[in-house]
């Protein structure tokens, strides 16, 4: 089949080659060949499948969207930190606890950096993690169900931006505070910043196992803005790196005041050393409340646990744990090469790109080449740790990823371009424009120890779209741009709109995930306390003014589908179990006038909707997901009577009617 397609492609291209040759004879260099060649590279014929899954953050949408590469087709939106009216996440009773925090229920947060779980530094396809930026949290997405299954809140933090960037074997996920704040929180004047504000680096354990995330320890650090992170790998395994800006420790007009000094710092944290200090009991137990929310695919429900304290390490009491690497000017991304040796700091206001050497860093620590010590943190000598500088590669460098062939690719926000450079010579090898203002970039596996296929594709994640698509009023879709980077020069292949802001992304070969997909939840494993796993278990129960309806769905009826004896002012819980056991047969549930939500129930799952009818009458309910040829017949009625009425509670299907 592949041979056939290739041959067909060849036949299709032949005339184009011809035309192109003729154009060239005329002295013109049209884009005809380029366009056709690019189209061929991204075309996935109907019924064929993409080579990669790409997971793109929705940025301010609080979600993750799933695309195919190279086609750029959207497959799914996974709600993480925001309610989702397509799936009921955060609306149904079962998933509401997922969005609980010490601040209460948070319906919408800002999601930033998706990162795949790793084994030996290689993406293993088990989980995707992503940080909630505004109300600090880290979420786990299960890659067999594409559902958010765990969220842990990060205490003593504000602006959880430098996160989650797992260590080589997902021993830890990390979280650095973008906004320093009083720790613990207290009511102090804002201009007492220098005196009272602190930052933290949090290390979260349990990444390898569903339900096991926990705050292992926090490190209290000077009150800078900690921007981004990356954990070491290979030679630098055991270390994590965090960029900082605002080492000036200003609290107003940062646009100007946080850019006064020539250099800010990349913090290098020796987390194995930190583990030793924890072992030795050199931590302070600090009261700090935070939520840990876990979803189960057996109970189809989430539960919340409120934790009460964290272990905090102070650098002054723990020598050898944290060092600062001076890095010009307000570095944003800190990216570690596949071998773990090079640490690229993108000083966003710097003309040059700074590359530190891990080996030199270790030597400088041994030789105690410290320029100064800040709150117990030695500042290493810049020249002693520097591996090299890429001279004037562009304007506004932000992020770097790698192809595994010795090349690095850096985005430049201000000059809107992606620049390829050599990790050996620090020479610029190629540059291609982005449309426009690229932020992060993503090469499948390009931030790990193993870029897939030695760097085949690069996706630029753009912040501004302007004139690239048909205009849609003042708000425009953001965009992702796909480049072929397999050759010496990068080639722009495709430019596709995304959901929210495609802040950062990950991609993994489809072959690793596709065969592990859950198709239905086995009914015999359903442990939901209100499940009816067969029609004979359906019933309606009243306790005071609370009514529980144990309902089932199957193509194409509800059981029960006629209910009487509900009273205005009752609180009615519809616990709906989908009895289907086949792939891609969800059922929906909606009842007239419900001011809460609807349901969408996967095969074998139970979900609950709360309905509080205020007025008497007969209310229809129906299936909202076109399920079968008789979908339109999939409906029922509920009679709501006055509170004082003596209508008995009855329920039934067909000629079978039951009562209390």
């Amino acid at each position, binding site marked *: 089949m592949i041979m056939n397609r290739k041959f067909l492609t060849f036949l299709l291209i032949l005339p184009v080659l011809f035309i192109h040759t003729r154009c060239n004879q005329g002295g013109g260099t049209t884009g005809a060949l380029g366009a056709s060649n690019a189209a061929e590279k991204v075309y996935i014929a109907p019924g064929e499948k993409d080579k990669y899954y790409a997971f793109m953050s929705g940025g301010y949408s609080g979600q993750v969207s799933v695309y195919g590469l190279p086609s750029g087709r959207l497959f799914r939106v996974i709600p993480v930190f925001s309610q989702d009216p397509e799936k009921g996440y955060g609306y149904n009773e079962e998933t509401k606890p997922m969005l609980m925090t010490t601040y209460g229920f948070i319906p919408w947060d800002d999601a930033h950096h998706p990162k795949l779980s790793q084994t030996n530094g290689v993406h293993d396809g088990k989980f995707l993690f992503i940080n909630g930026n505004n109300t600090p949290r880290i979420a786990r997405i299960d890659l067999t169900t594409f559902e958010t299954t765990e969220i842990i809140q990060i205490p003593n933090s504000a602006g959880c931006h430098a996160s989650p960037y797992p260590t080589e074997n997902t021993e830890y996920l990390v979280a650095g505070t973008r906004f320093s704040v009083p720790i613990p929180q207290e009511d102090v004047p804002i201009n007492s910043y220098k005196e009272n504000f602190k930052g933290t680096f949090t290390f979260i354990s349990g990444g390898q196992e569903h339900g096991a995330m926990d705050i292992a320890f926090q490190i209290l650090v000077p009150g800078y803005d900690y921007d981004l992170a990356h954990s070491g790998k290979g030679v630098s395994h055991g270390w994590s790196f965090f960029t900082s800006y605002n080492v000036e420790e200003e609290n107003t007009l940062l646009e100007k005041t946080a850019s006064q000094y020539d250099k800010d710092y990349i913090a290098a944290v020796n987390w194995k050393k930190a583990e030793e200090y924890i072992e030795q009991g050199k931590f302070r137990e600090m009261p700090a409340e935070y939520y840990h929310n876990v979803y189960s695919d057996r109970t189809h429900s989430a539960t919340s646990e409120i934790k009460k304290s964290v272990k905090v390490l102070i650098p002054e009491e723990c020598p050898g744990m944290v060092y600062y690497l001076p890095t010009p000017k307000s570095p944003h991304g800190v990216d570690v090469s596949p071998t773990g040796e090079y640490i690229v700091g993108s000083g966003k206001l710097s003309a040059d790109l700074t590359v530190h050497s891990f080996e030199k860093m270790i030597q400088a620590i041994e030789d105690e080449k410290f320029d100064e010590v800040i709150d117990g943190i030695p500042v290493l000598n810049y020249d002693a740790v520097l591996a090299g500088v890429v001279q004037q590669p562009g304007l506004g460098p932000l992020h770097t990823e790698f192809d595994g062939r010795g090349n690095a690719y850096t985005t430049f926000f201000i000059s809107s371009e992606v620049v390829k450079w050599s990790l050996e010579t620090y020479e610029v090898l190629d540059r291609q424009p982005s449309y426009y203002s690229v932020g992060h970039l993503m090469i499948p596996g390009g931030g790990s120890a193993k870029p897939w296929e030695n760097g085949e594709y690069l996706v630029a994640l753009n912040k501004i779209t302007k004139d690239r698509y048909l205009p849609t009023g003042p708000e425009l879709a953001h965009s992702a741009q796909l480049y072929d980077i397999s050759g010496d020069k990068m080639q722009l292949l495709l430019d596709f709109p995304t959901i929210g802001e495609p802040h950062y992304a990950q991609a993994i070969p489809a072959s690793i995930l596709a*065969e592990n*997909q859950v*198709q*239905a939840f*086995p*009914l*015999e494993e359903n442990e939901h306390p209100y499940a009816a*796993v*067969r*029609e*004979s278990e359906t019933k309606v129960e009243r306790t005071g003014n609370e009514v529980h309806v144990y309902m*089932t769905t*199957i*193509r*194409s*009826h509800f*059981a029960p589908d006629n209910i009487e004896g509900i009273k205005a002012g009752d609180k009615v819980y519809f616990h709906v179990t989908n*009895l*289907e*056991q*086949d*792939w891609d*047969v969800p059922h929906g549930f909606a009842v007239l006038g419900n001011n809460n939500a609807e349901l969408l129930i996967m095969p074998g799952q139970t979900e609950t909707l709360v309905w509080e009818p205020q007025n008497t009458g007969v209310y229809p309910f129906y299936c909202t997901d076109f399920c*079968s*040829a*008789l979908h339109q017949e999939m409906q029922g009625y509920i009679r709501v009577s006055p509170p004082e009425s003596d209508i008995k509670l009855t329920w039934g299907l*067909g000629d079978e009617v039951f009562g209390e």
Partner: protein
Amino acid sequence: MVQNKINLLIASLMIGGMVFSCSGKKQPSGLRETQSQNNKPVSYEQAVEDWRNNKGVGPIIDIELDPVDQAMVARGNEVFENNCTACHLPYKEKIGPALVGITERRTPEWIMNMILNPEEMVKTDPICIGLLARYNAVMADQNLDEEEARAILEYFRTLKIDPQEDPS
């Protein structure tokens, strides 16, 4: 479950392939043994009459029936209760037909293929096509495995007479 699906797919592909290679044209394969060379559609009545020669289409090619195995009957009863009773009852029509006496009007292979491969059966088997016209509802695939389908068949073998019609 996924493996089960793949097996099913392979089986249906193989059968589809066989039909394809015989006639060079895809046709309802449910009656391949009775009229595989004939392109004329078979009526429901004809198909019902000729049920002994219809094994359906799906993974089950041939079943040898031993004397009824009571342990398997109990297992089949349980699987039936859990997966089928939303639409089928043993002695009463619900969404689909009552199943009493089914083993007296369908072959064991047809019954198991109907459970394991309903989607293709509904599209290609002349009895199924006729039943769809009468009952309107399409049978759901509950993703049972062969062991479960076989147990249901064993349970069906015990549903010969409606106990309400036969007080003895």
